[in-house]
């Protein structure tokens, strides 16, 4: 074990371009040691890039998320996290909240939504085909599908989507919006969910928000604040990530036609292909949320002292050559794919099965119904959003 005086690298290394992963992550990972970075806000942090280290940081409860609440921790975005939500909690508080919605997100329950998801996608593709090429698959498919599904699950009016999409977009910004606009986005979401919670209180429902209201009012299992923020988290996480990944996956397939053909030739490859795309696609623009060590912990031979922050880079871990053969290549026939695209540990994505289902149905249906699908513009002109926490397309213009 070594104590090191490692100079901190300024971070981010570069601005995220499309779906490219900065080669610096791979160099640091293959170097076999914990990296030290200086974040744009909050000072220096360690950065884990290997599969083993990232899994340790995410899975070991000596690394705390709750310790970041209200603290000026090393981070990529300007605002300090002040509102409680599932992601800034540790067990047992975290478990108390997560338990309340666990039933709604089991593999079985989510699988029951497949026919509905297919019905929604069929309708969206009907409209797209009726209008004829070119079409924007972001507005036409990638966004409306997860929004519809999460609205129905939660009990949020679909008609309000333009409002909450705008707030989400600002709330998940890195540099695309001003600090004031980001705060307005957060405030807008909070106020919106407060109103919805009141509605579900007046008119009890079986939707998830209705169940959460009852958990609060009848069983006092969460505070009003926790209830509102839970609603915000479920709504935003329930559509932003999947909408972006749907676009990202279609972009990857269309820009590498041999992959598209492989899937069209063998539809049974769809589910493994989605898993491989989950592995290879960097969802975040940068490193993930920091955790604070509550005790001294050694990671890859480096001592992380109690109180120090560690960032994790899942995208780098997912390309770790110690775990994945030909790790930088897309291979739909991979034998073993233990990717951590949905995270690890107690914060493992609650909606993972829902995300998988939506991705499978969206991508599978596009390949089936638009067999000649291709970019309607040169690939360099397909616009990605910039300056967000999550990578995604602004638009996906296609023809068929």
């Amino acid at each position: 074990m070594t104590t090191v005086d490692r100079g901190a690298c300024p971070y981010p290394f570069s601005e995220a371009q499309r779906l490219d992963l900065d080669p610096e992550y791979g160099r640091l990972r293959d170097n076999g040691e914990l990296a030290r970075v200086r974040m744009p806000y909050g000072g220096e942090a360690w950065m884990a890039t290997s599969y083993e280290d990232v899994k340790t940081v995410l899975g070991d409860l000596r690394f705390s998320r709750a310790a970041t609440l209200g603290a000026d921790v090393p981070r990529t975005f300007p605002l300090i996290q002040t509102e409680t939500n599932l992601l800034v909690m540790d067990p047992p508080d975290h478990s108390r909240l997560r338990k309340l919605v666990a039933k709604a997100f089991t593999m079985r329950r989510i699988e029951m939504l497949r026919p509905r998801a297919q019905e929604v996608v069929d309708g969206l593709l009907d409209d797209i085909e009726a209008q004829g090429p070119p079409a924007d698959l972001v507005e036409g498919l990638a966004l409306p599908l997860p929004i519809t599904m999460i609205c129905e699950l939660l009990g949020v009016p679909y008609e309000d989507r333009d409002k909450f999409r705008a707030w989400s977009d600002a709330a998940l910004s890195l540099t695309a919006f001003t600090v004031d606009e980001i705060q307005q986005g957060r405030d807008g979401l909070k106020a919106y969910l407060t109103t919805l919670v009141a509605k579900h209180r007046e008119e009890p429902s079986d939707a998830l928000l209705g169940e959460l209201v009852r958990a609060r009012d009848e069983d006092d299992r969460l505070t009003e604040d926790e209830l509102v923020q839970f609603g915000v988290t479920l709504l935003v996480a329930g559509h932003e990530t999947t909408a972006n990944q749907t676009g990202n996956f279609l972009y990857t397939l269309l820009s590498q036609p041999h992959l598209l053909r492989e899937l069209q030739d063998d539809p049974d490859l769809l589910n493994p292909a989605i898993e491989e795309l989950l592995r290879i696609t960097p969802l975040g623009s940068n490193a993930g949320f920091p955790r604070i060590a509550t005790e001294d912990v050694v990671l890859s031979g480096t001592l992380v002292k109690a109180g120090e922050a560690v960032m994790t880079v899942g995208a780098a871990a997912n390309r770790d050559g110690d775990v994945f053969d030909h790790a930088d290549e897309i291979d739909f026939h991979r034998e073993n794919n233990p990717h951590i695209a949905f995270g690890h540990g107690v914060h493992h994505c609650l909606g993972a099965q829902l995300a998988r289902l939506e991705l499978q149905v969206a991508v599978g249906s596009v390949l089936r119904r638009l067999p000649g699908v291709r970019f309607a513009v040169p690939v360099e002109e397909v616009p990605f959003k910039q300056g967000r926490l999550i990578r995604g397309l602004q638009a996906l213009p296609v023809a068929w």
Partner: protein
Amino acid sequence: MTEDGRWQISIDSGTCIGSGVCAGTSPKYFKLDGGYGTPVADEVDADDEVVTAAESCPMEAILVREVGTEKVVAPLD
């Protein structure tokens, strides 16, 4: 012969990814051992908390059955 109110807990180690959601949800009944989920006790008195943890598993790796009858308690449809 059925033992009333006794359940057996098993975890499919091939499916388990060691996420620790079970241990985080219910440390009374689940722990992580060598990076994989393990029941604290293989046989327990019936308790809804066990069902919640089984349902929380992202991989559906936890199986809860009635002792004696082997009837599945969780996960259920």
